[in-house]
């Protein structure tokens, strides 16, 4: 697709599998996303990141362990991990809290970050962070899709 100045827009996607120990583990994605944008050789555009599970989120925040602990406390205070979730009646798993926490952060299941001059336009303290709220270790899949020129 061409835009008005004659340049071609590129749309490209990739998938990342992230090792996580779960249980609200936070994984910093900023550098990985930065490298992805730089490798695309696009100068302007945006990159969309999508978390392919129902028990976690991608958020933009300052990466500081106290903030992570506060976020977990906040989610736990709104939706206690030990409440009797109806989801558990199914008898398949006992991760009701993971689903609820994930839904509470659902606007962050996908995040879009603009870039210009090949650099992410994140603020000084903004980091892209994946939070895996599922109990137990699992590989977590993320789709990154870049639109730019």
């Amino acid at each position, binding site marked *: 697709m061409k835009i008005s100045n004659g340049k071609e827009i590129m749309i490209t996607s990739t998938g990342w599998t992230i090792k996580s120990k779960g249980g609200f583990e936070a994984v910093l994605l900023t550098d990985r996303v930065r490298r992805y944008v730089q490798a695309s050789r696009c100068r302007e555009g945006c990159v969309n990141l999508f978390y392919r599970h129902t028990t976690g989120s991608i958020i933009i925040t300052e990466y*500081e*362990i106290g903030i*992570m602990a506060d976020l977990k406390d906040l989610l736990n205070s709104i939706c206690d991990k030990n409440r009797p979730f109806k989801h558990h009646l199914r008898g398949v798993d006992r991760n009701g809290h993971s689903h609820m926490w994930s839904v509470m952060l659902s606007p962050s299941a996908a995040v879009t970050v603009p870039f210009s001059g090949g650099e992410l336009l994140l603020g000084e303290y903004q980091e892209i962070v994946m939070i895996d709220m599922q109990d137990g270790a699992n590989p977590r899949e993320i789709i990154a899709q870049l639109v730019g020129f």
Partner: protein
Amino acid sequence: MIDRIVIRFGGAVAPELCRYVEKIRADYISNRPESAPGFSAACDQLKLGEMSMDRFAGELAGVFSHLGSGRSISGLWEDRARCHAGAAEFLAKLNGRRPLSLVVDYPESWFWAAAARNNIFEGAPAGEPVFLSHAAGSPRGEEQLDSIYKQPGCLIIEPDFNRAMRCINQGVQTIHYVGISRTMRELDLRKLTPAGYVNSTKEEI
């Protein structure tokens, strides 16, 4: 007020290496049951830190046609050692300004080999490291850690996320180590950065 910085080396990677040793042991013994006792003893020595990685890889290469295992276990350690290399200057500078303690999950011989390779203690030796490789995860190890972490004015730099969360939840000042420049920025915010350090978080390894 921070008057002691405790840096933990190893974190999640050290148990991963130990699991890797177990995997090699299982693979090897199933293929060469006649050599099992000797090889098994070497694995035990490696896990306890009595044999260096290099020597283990060398012996493995000598007796075992599956050379890849020997190389990859060495490679894992080398990768980790490279990560520590960039921290050497930081440690030396920081050591001069604050009491610094090291808590190490790796076996002693592995750690000292990496320290020598990267001149980690050159010019400004840190206090004697506390090695947890024999006690990691055990009640004795936890007690040992508690006695270090719960000293007043202690700041922990912890590479494992879940352990960092446990520390902060106990009210201990904690930085989750996710690379040198981000750690330096956190220290900078706490006004603990060594003089003359110019920070950048543009690129991390």
